[in-house]
C-alpha cells in the first residue's frame, strides 16, 4: 500500500513513455468524446420522444438491453471485427475506435431513459396550463418541459459519465488504451503489484471526483433549490419530477 502511494507520488511514473499521465489523458479523452457523442445523438431523440409522449417502451427497454450485454463481450467482438478492429485511432490509442463505439453504446441508455422520463413526468396540469396560456408546442417544450426535466436529464448524463469512465478501464482487457493497462500489468507481475494497486486507486479516485463534480453541476441546474423543496414543498406548485437514480455498476 505504501509502495503504491510512493509510486503515485513519483513524477517518473507519470511522465515516462506510456506512463500514468499518457494513459490518464487517453482515458479522459475517450470518456468525454464518447459522452459528447452520446449526448449529441441520444438527447435530441429522447427529448423529442418525451415531448411527443411516444416511444416509451423503446426508451425503457433500451436500458434493459444495455444492462444485459457485458461491456467486455461487446469490446472483444468489436476488436475482432473487420471494422472497427483494433488499429490505433488518432490520440485514442490502440483499438481506440472500438473502445469509442463500445463506450457510446453504454452511454446512450442512461441518457435516453432519464431524459425521456424527465420530460414525460412533467405534471400534466402544468402542461395544460401552459397550453391554456397560449404556448405553442415549441414554447411548451423550451420554456416548461425542458427546464423541469433538466435535473433528470443531467442526472442521466452524470450516470453515463461515471459508467463510461468505469467502462473505459475495461478497454485494456482487449489491448486497448487507458489506465486499465497499469492495473492489468501490475496484477500480472508479482513484483509490480504495487503499481497495479496504485492504478486501481487512481481510477477509483477519479471516478469519485467525476461523480462529485457532476453532482455539483446537477445541483446547480435544478430550478427548485434543495432548501426550498424541503422547507415549503407544499407551497411550490411546480416541482421537477424526481426519480430514483441509482446507477448501474458497469464493468
Amino acid at each position, binding site marked *: 500500500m505504501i509502495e503504491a502511494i510512493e509510486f503515485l507520488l513519483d513524477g517518473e511514473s507519470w511522465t515516462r513513455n506510456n506512463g500514468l499521465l499518457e494513459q490518464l489523458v487517453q482515458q479522459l479523452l475517450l470518456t468525454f468524446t464518447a459522452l459528447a457523442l452520446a449526448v449529441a445523438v441520444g438527447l435530441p431523440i429522447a427529448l423529442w420522444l418525451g415531448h411527443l409522449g411516444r416511444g416509451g417502451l423503446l426508451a425503457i427497454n433500451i436500458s434493459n438491453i444495455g444492462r444485459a450485454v457485458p461491456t*467486455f463481450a461487446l469490446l472483444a467482438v468489436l476488436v*475482432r471485427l473487420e471494422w472497427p478492429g483494433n488499429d490505433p485511432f488518432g490520440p485514442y490509442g490502440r483499438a481506440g475506435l472500438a473502445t469509442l463505439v463500445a463506450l457510446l453504446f453504454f452511454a446512450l441508455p442512461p441518457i435516453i431513459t432519464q431524459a425521456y422520463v424527465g420530460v414525460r413526468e412533467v405534471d400534466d396540469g402544468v402542461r395544460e396550463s401552459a397550453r391554456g396560456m397560449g404556448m405553442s408546442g415549441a414554447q411548451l417544450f423550451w420554456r416548461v418541459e425542458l427546464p423541469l426535466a433538466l435535473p433528470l436529464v443531467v442526472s442521466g448524463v452524470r450516470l453515463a459519465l461515471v459508467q463510461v469512465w468505469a467502462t473505459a478501464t475495461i478497454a*485494456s482487457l482487449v489491448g486497448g488504451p487507458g489506465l486499465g493497462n497499469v492495473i492489468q500489468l501490475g496484477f500480472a507481475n508479482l513484483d509490480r503489484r504495487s503499481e497495479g494497486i496504485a492504478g*486501481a*486507486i487512481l481510477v*477509483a479516485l477519479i471516478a469519485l471526483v467525476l461523480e462529485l463534480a457532476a453532482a455539483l453541476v446537477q445541483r446547480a441546474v435544478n430550478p427548485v433549490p434543495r432548501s426550498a423543496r424541503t422547507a415549503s414543498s407544499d407551497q411550490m406548485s411546480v416541482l421537477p419530477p424526481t426519480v430514483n437514480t441509482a446507477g448501474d455498476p458497469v464493468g
Partner: protein
Amino acid sequence: MGVTLLGAGVATVVSAREPKCYSRDVNAWICGDYWVDRQDEIIEATATHLQITVAAVLLGLAIAFPLALVARGLPRLESSVLGMSTAIYTVPSLALLPLLVPLTGLTKTTVVIGLGLYCLTILVRAILDGLRSVPDDIREAAVGIGYGSARLLLRVELPLALPVMMAGLRVATVSTVALTTIGTVVSEGGLGYLIADGQSTEFNAELFAGAVLCVALALALDLLLVLAQRLATPWRRAVSA
C-alpha cells in the same frame, strides 16, 4: 460400377478432410461444430458463471437487507447508508477485483465479494423503496390486530414490498451476470474466460459463444425472477385479471 464406388470413396475422404468451421482457416463466428466438440468446456463455464452470479446476488441481498432495515429504523443514518452503497458503483470493477486479491486470492470468493458489493448500490435502495411503498393504514391495521414488529415485517411489509424489491433484484441480477465476465482478471470469470480466451487467441467461435451465452443467461434469470414474482404475489394477478 467400380468407378462409381471409387468416386464415393473419394467423396468421403474429402468430406472428412474438410476443415471444421472453427479451424484457423475458416474461423467462423457461428459454428455448430464448436458447440458440439467443446460441449464440456462450455457447460462448465456456464455453470461457473451461474454459480458466481447467484452467490454474489445472494451475498448482496444478505448485506442489503440489514442495511436497509437500519436505514429505515434510524433516519439519521439513512443518507450515509445510501451514500455509501451508491459510492461503490463509482469504483470500476477492473480496479475493485484486483484490490480484493490480497485478501481473498485468485478465487471465486474474490469475484463473489466484489460483485456482491456492486449489488448493494441497487438492492439497498430497492428494499428501502419497497418497504416505503407499504401504505401506512395497512401497517396500522396490522399493529391494531396485534402484530409485533417482527411479524409485521415478515407477514405484512415484506410481501407487500415484494414487487418493488423484485424490480431491484432483477436489475441487480442482470447486471451481475454481465459483470461476472470481468472476473476473468482474477482468473474466475465463468463465461468471461471464453470471451478472454477467444479474444486473445483470435478464436471467433469461442468468443461468440461466451458473449451470446452471457446475454442468454441474463435474460433467462430475468425471466425466472418474473415468474417467481408472479407465483409469490398471487393477489396482484387477481387484481389485474
